[in-house]
């Protein structure tokens, strides 16, 4: 908690700075901008999620994470300075698009030029509403940079192997609240895993509970679980290789998004991401955070 507080204080001060700049430069600061405007201003604003390891987080007031490293690569390639816009997530990604790409933040109205961790899924980007209009028509999603999946880590002392999900009728497991693993564990298989399931505010807290033996396993995003596994004893806690029957989405791709008006920006940034993926730099960035990397099929 204490750490969190320090982080947010930094956030607020950097925000205050941002706001100050905003007041001085009015228009150019609050709008998502074209590639030309970005290059001319010498700064690119990239939106990353708040407190979201291993992708974007503050450690002793320093921005760290996979998304931060990628954002720096983008800024370097465009020969501009990187300015981070920290996002507080809404209930869905559509809320984040609204708040950070096309309408602006509810308080200071600042928009980002590029948003990290946008889904790269045709059925999502082409989703239509009840009258046939594109739901996300104001946003262009592009440049998938990694493939995400689900992962279980378990305490081998009490649960040596996770052969199937059926094990969790008898062994305890934790998940982050309001996430797919949480829904899955409390409702799949007629609710038979429900009684053995506990929920936590974050995966990191679920890990803490596993370390002290409160639960025997944690299910979450593969990237987060693999990242967190470096901080626990690897002889006792092991990543499982089980399948997740009944989950509609077993794997999905994560990419970037820009306002739909700025396609040229997306082509330029897309080239940067392609180069990172092809020459293995993306893999190296994930390795740096001990996070499992899988290349999106787009590049194969």
């Amino acid at each position, binding site marked *: 908690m204490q750490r*969190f507080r320090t982080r*947010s204080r930094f*956030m607020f001060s950097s*925000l205050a700075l941002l706001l100050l700049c905003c007041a001085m430069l009015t228009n150019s600061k609050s709008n998502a901008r074209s590639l030309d405007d970005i290059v001319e201003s010498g700064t690119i604003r990239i939106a990353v*999620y*708040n407190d*979201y390891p291993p*992708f974007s987080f503050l450690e002793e007031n320093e921005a760290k994470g996979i998304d931060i490293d990628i954002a720096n690569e983008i800024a370097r390639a465009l020969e501009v300075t990187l300015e981070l816009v*920290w996002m*507080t*997530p809404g*209930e*869905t*990604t*559509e809320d*984040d698009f609204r708040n950070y790409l*096309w*309408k602006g933040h*509810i*308080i*200071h*109205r600042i928009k980002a030029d590029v948003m*990290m*961790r*946008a*889904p790269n*899924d045709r059925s*999502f980007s082409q*989703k239509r*509403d*009840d*009258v046939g*209009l594109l*739901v996300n028509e*104001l946003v262009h999603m592009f440049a998938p940079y990694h493939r*995400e999946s689900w992962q279980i880590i378990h305490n081998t002392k009490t649960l040596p192997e996770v052969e199937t999900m059926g094990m969790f009728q008898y062994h305890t497991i934790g998940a982050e*609240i*309001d*996430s*797919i693993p*949480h*829904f*899955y564990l*409390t*409702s*799949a*298989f*007629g*609710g038979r895993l*429900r*009684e*053995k*399931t506990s*929920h936590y*505010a974050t995966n990191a807290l679920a890990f803490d509970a596993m370390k002290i033996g409160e639960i025997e396993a944690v299910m979450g995003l593969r990237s987060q679980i693999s990242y967190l596994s470096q901080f626990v004893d690897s002889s006792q806690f092991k990543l499982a290789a089980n399948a997740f029957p009944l*989950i*509609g*989405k077993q794997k*999905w791709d*994560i990419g970037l998004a820009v306002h739909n008006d700025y396609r040229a920006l997306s082509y330029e940034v897309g080239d940067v991401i392609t180069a990172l993926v092809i020459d293995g730099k993306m893999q190296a960035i994930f390795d740096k955070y001990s996070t499992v990397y899988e290349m999106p099929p787009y590049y194969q």
Partner: protein
Amino acid sequence: MNNKMPIKKIALSMLVCASTFTPVHAVVTDKDIQNDQATTDDVVTYGMGLKAQRYSPLSAINKDTVEEVRPVWAFSLGGEKQRGQESQPLIKDGVMYVTGSYSRVWAIDARTGEELWQYEARLPDGIMPCCDVINRGVALYDNLVLFGTLDAKLVALDKDTGKTVWKKKVEDYRAGYAITAAPIVVDGKVITGISGGEFGIVGKVYAYDAKSGKQLWVRPTVEGHMGYIWKDGKKVENGISGGAPGKTWPADLWKTGGAATWLGGTYDVDTGLLFFGTGNPAPWNSHLRPGDNYFSSSRLAIDPNTGKIVWHFQTTPHDGWDFDGVNELISFDYTENGKTVKAAATADRNGFFYVLNRENGDFIRGFPFVDKLSWASGLDKKGRPIYIEDNRPGSPVDGKQGSQVVARPAFLGGKNWMPMAYSQDTELFYVPSNEWEMDIWNEPTSYKKGAAYLGAGFTIKSVNEDYIGVLKAIDPKTGETVWRYNNYSPLWGGVLTTGGGLVWTGNPEGYLMAFDDKTGEVVYKFQTGSGIVGSPVTWEMDGEQYISVLSGWGGAVPLWGGKSPSALSTSTKAERFGPLNYLSVISKLRKTKA
């Protein structure tokens, strides 16, 4: 009263007169608050009385004189922060206290419309309110103006200067908490509820000493959580809500639970009870949490002195439609077989109107107040809905993908937050309702924080070509709809009724409207320039009756409708009245002297 006397047209000279008036600097006492409904020269409570009947005995403005009503002044809330204005003004000693979007408060000279002071809460960047940056109003006590902020703080301002006297963090906004409802003051205690998203919050009711801001008690509204009371400055355990955890929840889901008290509460002096509504259980999908899930979607009677739950009545046990039944419970008495029944009524998001015995929470009767319900075939003897299980949205994982249910009313409710009114003259409730339905299906292509998120898709649709909103006059003794007024756009503003035989409300088209309380005939209309989602009030000043309402389109409807009007296919007209300008409109009418 003599209603036949000719009414003079409003002249400018009256405004000049008014400006020379010296205000009396009296403080608001417990007695002022308890008598608010009877005293017509002020409005010192949200709801125009702690019971929140929104009834005023004033009759100078009546069916015969209403056409004489003219605007006196308008006040722009101005700036960049023009969003939905769901507030109700309060008036004391010729000063109006009103809140606006982004947790702002103004004191305005009620005679001239001149700003006396403005308070702007410095909101942190990380707030994430679910349904627009609204606020519903202040409470007044002693020399204080009390209100809650979007970053979940309770603030007390000096009523003359607007300076902060005390400020308390009620909850941590970073965990998803916020306050949008007006607090209420009962015997020197300021009492507030809390809002929160689906991030695993627990609903609670909080009491503080109004003058000092010291916490007195806190009561969680989810079964299994410990309540606390402060004795001699010490926090003491005060009983677990519902007795023990897990009785009506599976596994550890009670630990989060939801049941937010986001609409605040009412109070009844006869029984000495506070009445708070609670929202939907979390997580949203009912298949994750078999059981009744106490005390979600309920009305709770709470003792203001001890913070203990005296009784509860659950409108939607095991809520599976997001019927977030937080609606206000309004106390009223009626006579049946020569006996006075101490009743209370609530019109729930789920489409049923309930009449309860307010002494013990017993169900007296209930009936639909919307034209059609799809999810229940009726209520049983105890008021529990008789579910139509086919209409329950499916399990997110085991459910067949692509299977869809059409549920009515939609999750925004037969009646949402907008408060209804009860007339002591007609003994009718005037209920602002909406006729819409929703498609719900499991949606594997929804995303949250970049991760695939197994959500449900909701599409709200109107069910009639020519209207969504319906203002209904409902007889709580019979369930009969005495009259109805169909409105093209959804109704989202509060209702007021008066001794002048009028019912007042605003619509998203921008009109402040008055209806004949017996027939529903529209007897007055005034275009305010933006959609109305606030609650009108009336009071008497310098021998004249005034009406005031905030105008300013916003709130949940345009937000859930998103950037395109598609979510409310036929309400596109309302979108046209989007954020233009926000005014407080006041009309006044000379009180006829008998």
